[in-house]
């Protein structure tokens, strides 16, 4: 092959790898857990076709199992009328398709297997499993810093430098085989091409072969995809790229296949099967995953359905059940939203903006019930995509959805006049960090753990008992000690002033965008509260999954503080007034953060408030506390094992408990994304199941705000919804399994037990209550109150929206204005009047 041909072959390989990687999802590090649709890169296909593709390559289930529907039918959560409506609906929607490319149009094809999987299946070898084991071992070693990095090289170079001395490679492949591994080309592209040729994979077969190679361990491969396609180029830490990952993986596969052909006895059965998609019932139960479904007995169905459903293919039956299940929820939600909302009784004393997160809905509802409050919903980064550097910290946080990159750096700094306490705090934090570092070092040493146990056991034992038996008291004690060592100090978050940081114009633009998008452009109350959210939990590797998705899996308080600082600036208000948004001088913007584990709300930066506002803020704090207690009482009824006369204390104890596997339910049961003024949803108990985004088409004649809402917050909501959906439908593949056996690897992910693949998705305890699904798996229902022509124009100019709505990844209902009836959008852009299935008088609730 000439040099030019070789170069072309390598370029084609890069594209083939990218295409193959569409079947797996990027996996973000634990510190910024991002809920993502596991099939996001197959969204060009309609939902059902993407599931067929994933079934073929990943070996997954894509529709909820029959027992879930059986239980739902018994509970009247889906009725015969819903099923009949779903059958009619599917007849109307059939025939639509929008996908193209490698993965389109072969839904009936057989299961995709790698060359070595086919060999294993035919000859009883365990090449693929052995490869999994070795690759997982090296990935963990590389990312954990155990495998020395090579100058200018990545994972492949580091592995290649050490594999020549690896006893495991010699045991599996023999001395000669191990030498061949070490002599693979210096560049990963060349090594992959060589290995594919040795495996007999032709050019046309490369994409499915590579896809299946990646699908065998979607955790490590997902991390490599994140690093290759989503992480900033300068992201710290050892880079594990797709190219390197596949080069190592295929190196083992090609070598072990050669060994297996020559000496079948050497590559025998692996001691344990590491691939989750092929696990049997015993392995599922070991992970705590509910057993796979048994056929659903449909004897309880009416005659017409019993006659119709058995004649359909199994996947079609599952689609009908899913359609009925989703339709049932949709009907009750839309019916509830048709009722006129009560008129506000008084002019609001406070306007409060909360994140669109479903957990905010409960707090908003309870806050509105205790006083004259007007609430709004907006993505919790408040339109400020910033890189935030907390004071005294070397690490910066990207506080924005992962769909965008931060475009400004914002720092926290001590308030003027707070220098003495700031210095003491910094000294205390440095001392605590040094002590923590010494403790961690002692834990990880060869002999020091024994000395540490002798020296510190006297204190650690009673502390552990306290932590276990009275976790809330322990947390108070720890915080008290922390305050003594590092006293709190007043700080400010400043986006820019006096020519430093963001310019006044930039700040005004962000402020205008935020206010216009949420429809708050006039009639400002004396206090405007911006409330982010975060979750305080203990001993929880997946803690960031409970924080704010709009803030990139971080707590949202800093975003609220930065936005409040901008909106309080005189220069910004002057520029806003020139654009028709007049914020009165008497209006103060205040930042806060809702702790979704405890339902307590912290109001920030009291030291910045003028005395004239103190009484109002004190009253606001009291009402936020009352609303939080009411929400805690509501949540306690849903949390298994939560009890006691004091709901606030009960949720606080869970939050502080280091043995608690389910500190809160997070976003479980999320189901709808509502884009409308609060009037549409006010007074309706949405049971913390709806993302609520405020929107006023009256201030959005071009649909720019609507476009922003649908292409960013709705996409994030869809990711969350799809993550919960697939993790509940097939927890064996899409969930992280039982969190009681998680071990953290290299700070970037968890494995089950001692090794194997990185676990993807949410832990089982975030989805299931024992063996019953708590989350109700259904596709997101987006409800928009806006002129249909405007909505269709926005969809028409955004391919991602056409893919989501036409491909039925997301359902869409809409109406032009509050007096209109709801319509349902069908694939392709036709709209039909919403007609609810016959209502069963025994049930009717938006709670689902």
């Amino acid at each position, binding site marked *: 092959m000439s040099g*030019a041909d070789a*170069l*072309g*072959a*390598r*370029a*084609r390989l*890069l*594209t*083939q790898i*990218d*295409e193959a990687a569409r079947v797996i999802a990027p996996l973000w590090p634990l510190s910024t857990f991002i809920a993502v649709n596991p099939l996001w*890169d197959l969204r*060009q296909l309609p939902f059902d076709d993407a599931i067929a593709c994933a079934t073929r390559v990943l070996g997954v289930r894509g529709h909820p199992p029959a027992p879930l529907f059986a239980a739902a039918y018994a509970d009247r959560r889906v009725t015969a009328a819903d099923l009949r409506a779903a059958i009619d609906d599917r007849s109307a929607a059939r025939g639509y398709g929008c996908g*193209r*490319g*490698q993965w*389109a149009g072969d839904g009936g094809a057989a299961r995709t297997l790698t060359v070595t999987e086919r060999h294993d299946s035919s000859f009883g070898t365990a090449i693929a499993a052995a490869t999994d084991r070795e690759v997982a071992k090296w990935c963990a070693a590389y990312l954990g810093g155990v495998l020395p990095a090579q100058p200018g090289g990545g994972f492949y170079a580091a592995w290649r430098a050490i594999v020549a001395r690896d006893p495991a490679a010699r045991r599996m492949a023999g001395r000669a085989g191990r030498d061949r591994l070490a002599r693979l080309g210096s560049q990963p*592209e060349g090594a992959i091409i060589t290995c594919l040729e040795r495996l007999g994979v032709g050019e046309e077969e490369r994409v499915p072969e590579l896809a299946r190679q990646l699908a065998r361990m979607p955790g490590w491969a997902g991390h490599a995809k994140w690093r*290759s*396609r*989503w992480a900033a180029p300068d992201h710290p830490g050892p880079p594990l790229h797709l190219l390197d990952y596949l080069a190592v993986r295929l190196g083992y596969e090609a070598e072990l296949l050669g060994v297996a052909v020559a000496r079948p006895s050497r590559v025998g059965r692996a001691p344990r099967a590491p691939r989750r998609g092929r696990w049997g019932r015993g392995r599922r139960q070991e992970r705590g995953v509910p057993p796979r479904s048994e056929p659903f007995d449909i004897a309880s169905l009416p005659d017409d359905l019993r006659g119709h459903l058995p004649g359909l293919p199994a996947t079609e039956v599952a689609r009908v059940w899913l359609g009925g299940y989703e339709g049932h929820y949709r009907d009750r939600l839309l019916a509830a939203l048709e009722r006129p909302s009560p008129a506000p009784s008084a002019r609001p004393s406070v306007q409060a903006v909360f994140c669109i997160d479903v957990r905010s809905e409960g707090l908003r509802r309870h806050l509105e019930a205790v006083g004259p409050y007007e609430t709004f919903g907006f*993505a919790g980064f408040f*339109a400020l*995509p910033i890189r935030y550097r907390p004071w005294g910290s070397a690490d910066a946080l990207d506080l*924005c*959805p992962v*769909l*965008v*990159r931060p475009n400004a750096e914002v720092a926290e700094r001590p308030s003027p006049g707070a220098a003495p306490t700031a210095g003491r705090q910094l000294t205390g934090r440095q001392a605590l960090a040094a002590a923590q570092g010494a403790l961690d070092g002692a834990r990880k040493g060869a002999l020091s753990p024994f000395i540490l146990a002798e020296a510190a056991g006297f204190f650690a034992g009673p502390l552990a008992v306290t932590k276990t038996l009275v976790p809330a008291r322990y947390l108070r004690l720890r915080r008290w000690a922390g305050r003594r060592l590092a006293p709190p100090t007043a700080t400010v978050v400043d986006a820019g002033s006096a020519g430093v940081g963001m310019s006044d114009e930039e700040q005004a633009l962000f402020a205008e*965008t935020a206010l216009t998008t949420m429809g708050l452009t006039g009639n400002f109350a004396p206090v405007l509260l911006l409330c982010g959210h975060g979750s305080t939990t203990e001993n929880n590797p997946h803690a960031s999954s409970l924080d704010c998705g709009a803030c990139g899996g971080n707590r949202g308080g800093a975003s609220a503080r930065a936005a409040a600082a901008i909106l309080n600036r005189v220069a910004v208000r002057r520029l806003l007034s020139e654009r028709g948004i007049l914020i009165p001088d008497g209006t103060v913007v205040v930042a806060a953060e809702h702790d979704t584990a405890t339902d307590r709300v912290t109001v920030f930066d009291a030291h910045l408030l003028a005395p004239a506002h103190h009484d109002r803020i004190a009253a606001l704090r009291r009402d936020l506390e009352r609303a939080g207690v009411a929400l805690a009482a509501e949540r306690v009824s849903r949390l298994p094992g939560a009890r006691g006369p004091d709901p606030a204390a009960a949720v606080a104890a869970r939050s502080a408990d280091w043995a608690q596997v389910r500190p809160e339910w997070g976003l479980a049961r999320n189901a709808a994304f509502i884009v409308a003024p609060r009037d549409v949803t006010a007074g309706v108990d949405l049971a913390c199941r709806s993302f609520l985004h405020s929107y006023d088409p009256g201030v959005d004649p071009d649909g*720019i705000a609507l*476009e*922003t809402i649908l*292409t*960013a*917050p709705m*996409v994030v909501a869809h990711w969350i919804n799809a993550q919960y959906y697939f993790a509940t439908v097939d927890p064996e593949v899409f969930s992280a399994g039982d969190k009681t056996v998680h071990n953290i690897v290299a700070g970037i992910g968890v494995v089950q037990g001692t090794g194997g693949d990185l676990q993807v998705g949410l832990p089982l305890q975030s989805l299931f209550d024992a063996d019953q699904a708590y989350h109700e798996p259904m596709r997101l229902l987006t409800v928009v109150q806006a002129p249909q022509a405007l909505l269709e124009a926005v969809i*028409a*100019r*955004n*391919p*991602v929206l*056409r893919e989501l709505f036409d491909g039925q990844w997301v359902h869409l209902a809409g109406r032009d204005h509050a007096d209109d009836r709801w319509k349902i959008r069908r694939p392709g852009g036709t709209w039909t009047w919403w007609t609810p299935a016959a209502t069963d008088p025994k049930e009717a609730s938006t709670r689902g």
Partner: protein
Amino acid sequence: MDESWGLTRMTRVEVVVAGDDVALLAELFAEVGATGFTAVSNVSGLGHSGYHQGRLLFNDRNALALLTVVLPPERTAALLDGLRPLLAGRSGVLLVSDTWVSRPQYFQ
């Protein structure tokens, strides 16, 4: 093109792809030895798969990007080898044209 201008012929490749695919394009350019490229994000226009909005405020991944790279002609075929399968399955535009540069050493 007047030879007296003292310019060197190169090939200019312009590609419009989704923001999602920019990382792959950067890999491809590096693979074929491109020393740099220009990226313009949030471009809009009408094409085979309908209209593409360019101004998405908070979504860089689903807006289109225009990437321009200049290569010695002998490396262009290799880049096209990588781009053809990409555009076979995804939305995009590929334009290839001759261009002339004054400092060829920057593009070798």
